């Protein structure tokens, strides 16, 4: 698996670390518990394109929002982002 880092070019996935799905917006502090439960625990877990956060830890250390197909591991896009 190779990830096209916008700063370093296409690099091997071993240079990156992932924290998984790109999280939805964080609920407000006074949001009901169900919203926090959904934010923290529930996942769409799609078989197909999946938005996720990777960091180029052994490169430029940039955080990336990566669109990747979970059926083939093909990376469709990688954009710099703030986690």
């Amino acid at each position, binding site marked *: *698996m190779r990830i096209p880092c916008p700063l370093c070019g296409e690099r*091997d*996935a*071993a240079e990156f670390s*992932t*924290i*998984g*799905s790109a999280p939805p917006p964080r609920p407000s502090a006074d949001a009901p*518990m*169900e919203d926090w*439960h*959904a934010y*923290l*625990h*529930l*996942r*769409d*877990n*799609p*078989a197909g394109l*999946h938005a*996720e956060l990777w960091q180029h830890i052994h490169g430029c250390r940039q955080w990336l929002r990566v669109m*990747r197909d*979970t*059926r*083939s*591991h093909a990376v469709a896009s990688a954009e710099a982002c703030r986690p």
Partner: protein
Amino acid sequence: MRYSALALLRHALTGNRSWTPAWRDPAPKPAYDTIIVGGGGHGLATAHYLAKRHGITDVAVVEKGYLGSGNVGRNTTIIRSNYLLPGNTPFYEHSMKLWEGLEQDINYNAMVSQRGVLNLCHSDSQRDAYARRGNAMRLAGVDAELLDAAQVRAMVPGLNLDSVRFPVKGGLLQRRGGTVRHDAVAWGYARAADSRGVDLLQNTEVTGIRVQSGRVLGVETTRGFIGAKRVGLAVAGNTSRVASMAGLRLPIESHVLQAFVSEAVKPMIDTVITYGAGHLYVSQSDKGGLVFGGDIDGYNSYAQRGNLPVVHDVMECAVQLFPSMSRLRYLRQWGGIMDMSMDGSPIIDRTPVEGLFLNCGWCYGGFKATPASGWCFAHTIATGQPHALNAAFRLDRLASGHVIDEKGAGAQANLH
């Protein structure tokens, strides 16, 4: 047909020409009392215990491929019940007891081999943690022994105890743990369920779940609609996909776990060894190949194949532990899709949809749980209530804060 030494002899004398298929290949009926989605270990075990313990034989197991084509044929065949937390220990110990009587129960040779499972520790604090876990196990009636380095050295020749960075300080041994021939578990449960009238529908993929007024009516399949009063899902890595057909969003991520087998060699490891400083578990199959695996790859996947960084990592751990393995070639490598839950523990429960039951979240420890999972899931489906053994494995436990987090890793699926 009952299998026995006498039957073997009789068939041998008649040229092995009269063996019959182990199960039927029936056409789907329009409706069943209960449908189990997923013809893997857990689904087939559920069908067996539904028929045997609860007398519910109007059951179909619906499988998209062939029986046992998923994780029950893709694991490293290890069984153990060395868990720490009260929600887990009795359940896995029940599973171990069912393994011990499995072959008599289903009249099938599953090659249950209680060769022991030895978890190595590499620091004083890790030994303390193992002592604590061993004590918790013994309090719950599970066997556990804490070994020192000399005992480990005597037990496992060829093991590198004297690594400068990660010396082996000892280990926690469960002698009743071991390995089981994984495919035979699927085949044995399938045959036992079929013999009691359960229909095993292979190459039948579920494409929808029909729900009306909050009640399940049956499943849409590639062979048409099949009605059912109760539907149980035991589909491992495909749980999120199938449950979404009934409108459920679950605390599950699908991840790929790789496993490996080496070329066959003479007897080298007569137990199951796990490495505590990296992550590796290794045993030797009866054919002689070393069967081993490590961590999941760490990213969401439905691909049933992984990538090279984990291969590299697992091989490094293997060679660090058994330097002689550096001269072996590995023969095969494969991947399975794990239903990783948010606290690392499974779910066997009802769902908000009346008549729809859920069995998932096995992370990468589902094989050892197969008998108890089927046993408890059958009980939950038959009675509508969880058994005391799976009372902690509720679907709503994350929302209410009753997590069962053996690793203490939090809601980060790829760390469990």
